[in-house]
């Protein structure tokens, strides 16, 4: 007896929930092309995310994550936040994801092993994710979203961001830099080969 039905259960549940939650209030703007694009990209993103959660092969998970991150970047582009979208691509798809893939490929000892969660785990995941979904949807429905000007301040977004990073948000910026420095030093230390002790014989020279 396979357990496939059990961990494929969240999928229709989530779809139904999202279908119910999506009311027609946020009607698409005047450009029908943009609406079509949005739904397409959203479908790809959500589908990839679900694939990432459901896949049994760890590398397929990583590739679905690529789809999700790319989809999010496309959503940013659709909202005319091109800078944010590009940064999303550089940092997430071109950085974080590669770290994840490297980690998977370098340390995964059993490449073909299928990762199947146990029923208890699936139930716990359902409960937690369901609660999170309900909470998020409730917050979304209750918030009074202000109508942002279409297109935003497309000119000068980058300049505005840069200026505010260095004036208003200077302290978090510097803290983040220090954090990154600490991360780099820690990584360099961890990746160092262990120095040979006296009775150990010469280790391989790197």
């Amino acid at each position, binding site marked *: 007896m396979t357990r496939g039905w059990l961990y494929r259960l969240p999928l229709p549940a989530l779809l139904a929930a999202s279908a119910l939650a999506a009311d027609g209030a946020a009607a698409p703007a005047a450009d029908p092309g943009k609406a079509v694009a949005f739904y397409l990209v959203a479908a790809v993103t959500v589908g990839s995310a679900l694939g990432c959660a459901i896949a049994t092969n760890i590398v397929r998970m990583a590739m679905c994550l690529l789809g999700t991150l790319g989809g999010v970047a496309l959503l940013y582009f659709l909202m005319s936040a091109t800078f944010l979208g590009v940064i999303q691509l550089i940092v997430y798809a071109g950085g974080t994801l590669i770290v994840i893939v490297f980690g998977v490929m370098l340390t995964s000892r059993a490449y073909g092993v299928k990762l199947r969660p146990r029923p208890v785990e699936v139930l716990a995941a359902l409960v937690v994710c369901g609660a999170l979904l309900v909470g998020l949807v409730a917050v979304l429905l209750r918030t009074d979203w202000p109508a942002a000007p279409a297109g935003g301040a497309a000119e000068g977004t980058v300049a505005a961001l840069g200026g505010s990073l260095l004036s208003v948000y200077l302290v978090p910026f510097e803290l983040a830099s220090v954090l990154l420095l600490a991360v780099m030093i820690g990584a360099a230390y961890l990746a160092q080969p262990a120095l*040979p002790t006296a009775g150990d014989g010469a280790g391989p020279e790197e």
Partner: protein
Amino acid sequence: MRGKRVSGAERNRQGMEDKLLQGRPDVLVEVDRDRAGGGLRTEEMLVNMGPQHPSTHGVLRLMLRIDGELVLECTPHIGYLHRCAEKIGENVTPVQFIPITDRLDYLAAMINNHGYSLAVEKLLGMEVPERGRYIRVIMSELNRIASHLVSFGAYGLDMGAFTPFVYAFREREYILDLFEQVCGARLTYSYLSIGGATQDLPEGFPERLAQFLDYFEPKIAEYNNLLSFNQIFVKRTAGVGVISAADAIAWGLTGPCLRGSGVKWDLRKCVPYDIYDRFEFDIPVGLPGGVGGAPREAVVGDSWNRYYVRILEMQQSVRILRQCLQQLPSGDFRAKVPRVLKLPAKETYLEVEGGRGQVGYLVVGDGKAVPRRVKIRGPSFCNLSIASHVCRNVLIADIAAIIGSIDVVMGEVDR
């Protein structure tokens, strides 16, 4: 599915032990080497380089035990080109054996022919006429240049420089044209035989050879510019695979490998055979960094020096060839060889300086036309034996550099 969950690693190990017994070691071997201090657990891999591989210079199988990028152990497996040459020697007459000697070191076939002919002539006590001896030396030295050109080109190719390879073969085409004019063949000549050369040099050959030498000599400077002193090439080869002089002598290295480690030993000068004592030439040896034009990073006995010795040897061969052309006499090109050569019941051993080292021939006569035993000392066989000693704790990319600088030809390793 019910049942004990066998981890993939465990399945892998069980599967591969069977494969190891079948002699297929190119699978994952898990060796948990917990490093001191509890670092990351690393796996060692047993990988096969060859026998079909672009950079192993023939059908050589190298079994590498690697840890990531580092090679911990390198074991050459030979025998893929074994053609029972020595056994054939017991069944054919010396003249019939000459083509077999061609195919030992097929890149320097004339030298092999020369060596075997000298061994049999020593056994018979045969006297070779002067012109024959000069023809032999001309062919040997020309073939040495051709062989070193292949070594130089292939080494560049291994290092990723595609162009010197084509230049080397362009020069080699002219040499092979000369050989074709002389005997009709381009690689396996069987031209030098018992008693001298099988045919005389064609008309106009000395002029054409002089023309080639004039064309070729400036090319060596071009090769030095293109490859020998190129920073990237130097960084790949200098200091890599250092063989000390004591090691070289202990492991029986000969030829450019020995001379690259600083030992000034060349049979042509130290134990002159045939007419080599009539020529003036130098023996290039390995240079330490900064001396004689060698780059700073060079060490005596490293791959760069073994390679550079070959370049310098090409220059010396050109020198010898010019002197040969000056001194070339007229006359007979071959001694009177009887139709049936009876070998006396004696044995001789004679070594000549081949393209890769000292090629030795042991011929044991039996009173019959067919020798009782022919034993060939292939220089590449001895040179290759040091591979496992040298290729320790080097990177995979250095394996190509070291094997390329040792420059093995599997024909004389496996015979």
